[in-house]
């Protein structure tokens, strides 16, 4: 015990500096052999395509059976004028346990809100009136805005330069897959790593 206290004490700064992982933005088994970090922008059309066409298959074949752990990361691109606002609402929705529902609403209705800028109106369709109030207040919270920025900085430090980008992590190796890949090719990678 005498030895473990100083050891734990010395670890405190490391633990506090570790990036916070919002559990509401993660899916599947954290101990799965593969982790997929998905960097996306709610206003990017390719991210919409990936979310609608590819993600359900990844969830069904890898995340739900416990082969992969999915972590959503925000990567709003500067050329998209509403994407940072959308990311903030999505992160705020994660705090009330509604990240996936809000992400679905944002991607499904992307052409409309990207055009008219009615982001909150879109977000609110996935929330109860009480949640709407909470999410609206949280989206202005500096902590939420910082969370979005932390995701962006993490992506930049890992070489993410376009959206969507899936970082497939297996042990110490990281494989970036940009764009919307052919699912059978993606399966070849994931199956090979999951063995």
């Amino acid at each position, binding site marked *: 015990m005498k030895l473990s206290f100083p050891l734990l004490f010395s670890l405190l700064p490391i633990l506090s500096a570790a990036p916070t992982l919002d559990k509401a933005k993660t899916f599947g088994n954290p101990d799965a052999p593969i982790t997929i970090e998905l960097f996306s922008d709610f206003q990017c059309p390719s991210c919409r395509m990936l979310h609608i066409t590819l993600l359900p298959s990844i969830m069904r074949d890898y995340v739900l059976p416990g082969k992969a752990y999915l972590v959503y990361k925000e990567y709003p691109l500067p050329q998209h004028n509403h994407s940072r606002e959308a990311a903030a609402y999505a992160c705020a929705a994660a705090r009330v346990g509604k990240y996936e529902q809000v992400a679905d609403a944002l991607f499904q209705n992307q052409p409309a809100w990207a055009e008219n800028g009615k982001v909150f109106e879109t977000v609110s369709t996935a929330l109860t009136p009480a949640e709407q109030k909470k999410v609206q207040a949280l989206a202005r919270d500096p902590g939420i805005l910082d969370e979005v920025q932390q995701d962006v900085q993490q992506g930049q430090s890992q070489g993410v330069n376009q959206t969507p980008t899936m970082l497939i992590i297996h042990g110490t190796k990281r*494989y970036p*897959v*940009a*764009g919307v890949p052919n699912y059978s*090719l993606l399966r*070849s990678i994931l199956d090979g*790593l999951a063995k």
Partner: protein
Amino acid sequence: MVFGYAAYTKLSQPWALFAISVDAYHILPEWAVTVVARGLPWLELALAVLIVLGPWRRTTSVAASTLLLVFFGMMVRAYLRGEQIDCGCFGPGEAISPLTLVRDGALLAVSGFLTWDAFQHSRRPARSFQSQYSSY
């Protein structure tokens, strides 16, 4: 060196990762994407070895220039179409940009020059010792 490094970056990762980069160009059918993704890194490695060792200089320089011309053409096509895809040149994670186009264009220019040089030298064969000194 460049071909050797390009081959290494592809062979050290799952082949399907490079296949995804090839597929993103939307030029080849799926079976051909598989053939290219599995075969091209070995072709690059073979070219690197042959270029370093030096035999069949004209053949290897023509092959290298042709390969670079195809790569460059595909990249320019994708860039002009506004496709935001990975170049796939040296493994994943490098999007096509003016910088990658300049780099690959420069490699093509150097390779083109070396090919021209290989043919120039083959037209002027070095005179044998006997023929050089036969006039004395």
